[in-house]
């Protein structure tokens, strides 16, 4: 006969496995919430720079691959973009400083109008070619080729045509210098 006061014994699986599973779940959740966000790196780094042909503000065709053999800095910007305004004087000066290494600076105006891009170039004395992104033509769809998700974005391409560094967001003096060094532009 069963003793009336006997306490029902807990199944060992219930006793240990359930708390362990719950603990593991909470630990995974905590790790996911607290781990530092992954550094935003472009899928293009280390790969050949996608080519494009775009119209300059003067209306002539400019093909990126025509600069092969020289370090190239491609800067996606827009006249309506605040951080682009902040970095424009830095880019203008860097273009002058790295001229001895025959470095090419190229501005790609994204989602912009040519007169506004021209005014931007003149206001900030950008002494390098500025082209207009053109998403209607396959050859000109530079924003997709470079998978940009905002402006500004800057790509540092070495003389072999490889994207050495991509910077999402505004440049600062340090990142600009590092990028230029990486492609042998200074």
């Amino acid at each position, binding site marked *: 006969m*069963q003793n*009336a006061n006997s306490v029902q014994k807990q199944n060992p699986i219930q006793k240990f496995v359930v708390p362990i599973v719950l603990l593991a779940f909470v630990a995974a959740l905590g790790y996911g919430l607290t781990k530092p966000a992954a550094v935003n790196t472009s899928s293009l780094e280390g790969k050949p720079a996608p080519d494009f042909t775009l119209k300059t503000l003067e209306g002539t065709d400019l093909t990126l691959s025509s600069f092969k053999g020289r370090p190239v800095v491609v800067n996606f910007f827009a006249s309506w973009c605040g951080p682009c305004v902040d970095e424009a004087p830095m880019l203008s000066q860097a273009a002058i400083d790295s001229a001895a290494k025959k470095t090419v600076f190229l501005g790609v105006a994204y989602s912009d109008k040519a007169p506004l891009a021209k005014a931007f170039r003149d206001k900030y004395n950008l002494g390098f070619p500025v082209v207009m992104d053109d998403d209607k033509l396959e050859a000109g769809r530079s924003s997709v*080729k470079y998978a940009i*998700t905002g402006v500004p974005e800057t790509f540092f391409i070495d003389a072999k045509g490889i994207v050495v560094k991509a910077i999402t967001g505004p440049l600062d003096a340090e990142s600009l210098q590092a990028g230029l060094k990486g492609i042998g532009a200074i």
Partner: protein
Amino acid sequence: MIRILSSLLILLLAGFSLAQNAAEDARVQALAKQIRCPICQGLSITESSTDFSRSMLNELKDRVKQGETDDSIRDYFVSKYGRVVLLDPPKSGSDLIVWGAPLVILFGGAAALFSYLRRASNQTMPEVRSASLEKVRKQLEESQKL
């Protein structure tokens, strides 16, 4: 006679071209619904009106026109933007966890609930010793006498 035949041929070609365009449009729409707008919250490039989505949609249309396969087009966007560009993760590799985890949790929960309910329904009343029963009966009788 020649005029009638040539008219029929033109009509036939026009019909074929229309049907081909409709099929291409349907493919574009179906594929575009699977591609995420990279700057939006869970919107496909057909639902979003950003310039980025428009550019991606134009790229997708060109690739469909060039006769690329669905997989090749998806792979192109993944190579550019990463796997996050796909609204539905592929049902392979580590992405299987995303699809499998809810099912595992659902079936696990159902099994736990079933097991709990079965145990609860099988629970028997604790047996009472006859000595105790006798004691209670006596107490009841005494209280009735009073």
